[in-house]
């Protein structure tokens, strides 16, 4: 297991280049949420020449659709959703300067290549840990597409949000490495 690295958003190219697949990272600062429906709208907005609900430069998008907040809490359970559904959209956002995505599962070869080309990272968070991860979210505010309910775009303020580097900007892939190490032939 790599070292624990603390990062604060927005991220610079320098921050990204020092990360390697398998590194444990604690993220603090502002991150944004978006799932398939929100991504679709963002890409359509770009195609119409409109602005995105937030400037993606240097930012991180967390693939999550939280459950409703209980009274007194900023947000409900908030673990990652499966990332491959964002494969059609992520490369365009990375090309615009998005520095990180947080999700679970594999993403496409194209996403991997974009991470290398544009210096970005795909982080993994532990799925099915919604209660634990919600405690690292200090503030949550819907900033766009409110009608999408759980899928609306939110601005989150996080503190020591635990993730692991899955695809780094040097072509490293935690899944590939991990499976190679633990696979037993025959």
């Amino acid at each position, binding site marked *: 297991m790599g070292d624990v690295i603390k990062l604060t958003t927005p991220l610079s190219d320098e921050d990204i280049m020092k990360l390697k697949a398998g590194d444990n990272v604690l993220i603090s600062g502002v991150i944004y949420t978006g799932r398939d429906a929100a991504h679709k709208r963002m890409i359509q907005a770009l195609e119409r020449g409109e602005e995105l609900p937030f400037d993606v430069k240097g930012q991180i998008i967390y693939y999550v659709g939280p459950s409703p907040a209980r009274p007194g809490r900023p947000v409900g359970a908030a673990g990652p959703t499966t990332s491959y559904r964002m494969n059609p959209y992520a490369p365009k956002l990375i090309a615009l300067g998005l520095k990180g995505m947080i999700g679970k599962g594999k993403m496409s070869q194209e996403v991997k290549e974009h991470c290398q080309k544009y210096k970005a990272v795909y982080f993994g968070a532990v799925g*099915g840990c919604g209660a634990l991860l919600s405690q690292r979210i200090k503030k949550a505010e819907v900033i766009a597409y409110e009608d999408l309910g*759980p899928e609306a775009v939110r601005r989150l303020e996080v503190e020591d949000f635990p993730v692991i580097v899955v695809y780094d900007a040097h072509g490293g892939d935690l899944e590939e490495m991990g499976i190679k190490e633990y696979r037993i032939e025959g």
Partner: protein
Amino acid sequence: MRVIDVSEITEAVAKLCIDANYDLPSDVYQALKDAYEREKSPVGKAVLSMILENAELAKQRVAPICQDCGLAVVFLEIGQDVHFTGGSLKEAIYEGVRKGYKEGYLRKSTCHPFTRANVGDNTPPVIHYDIVPGDKVRIVVAPKGGGSENMSMVTMLKPADGLEGVIETVVNRVKEAGGNPCPPIIVGVGVGGTFERSAFLAKKALLRPVGKPNPDVELAKVEREILERINKLGIGPMGWGGTVTALAVHFEMEPVHIASLPCAININCHVARHKEIII
């Protein structure tokens, strides 16, 4: 004959929806604890320890175990001597789902297939009715997450493919799924009857206590073999490499048509929720 007012069903379903989403069943928790002991990868171990801590937090009602509070799958075994009064049984179940998902601060995850507009109250649930002897009603609520459901499949194999074909299909499916269904997973396999019957059997297999073998010794052997092969894949917790990819394989089998070999694989994530009540 026993008379039951459907409002009792509404209350029961609402409570089951909430409890299922906050209290991980003790057999699942134990299986995850054992997995933590067995897991060789440090990354995998760290994942499992987070999962266990998360279950504790959810139990204290910090938030549901997972933000995907699932599509409500409801199994109803109705004693044939029961008579329902006070309205429609189906509507009572729907109302229970609405109430549970609202009052439990659970995420509503049903939507229109194409516009993707959220229905707003997590209806409709999927309801499986069964009529059994007696005057009791057994209700099981098993909220099912999308991530693991998306990795499930039904395929119509050829009879010549045989048991080896089924085993191969299951192992390949789990391999392709990788980290998507939030491993460690529980794998339900259904072989029997028609297309939809095999799917039902695979789903039902997930309700068994984790790792409880099929009473048929031959099938229990098959379950062990598939589990072993899956855990050799190296996928590990969350797909980041490790020795525990599945906690258990549950295999259910029934006779099939002479021309067919339907094979269904229903994958459940480690948040293997289900709660039941007998009224």
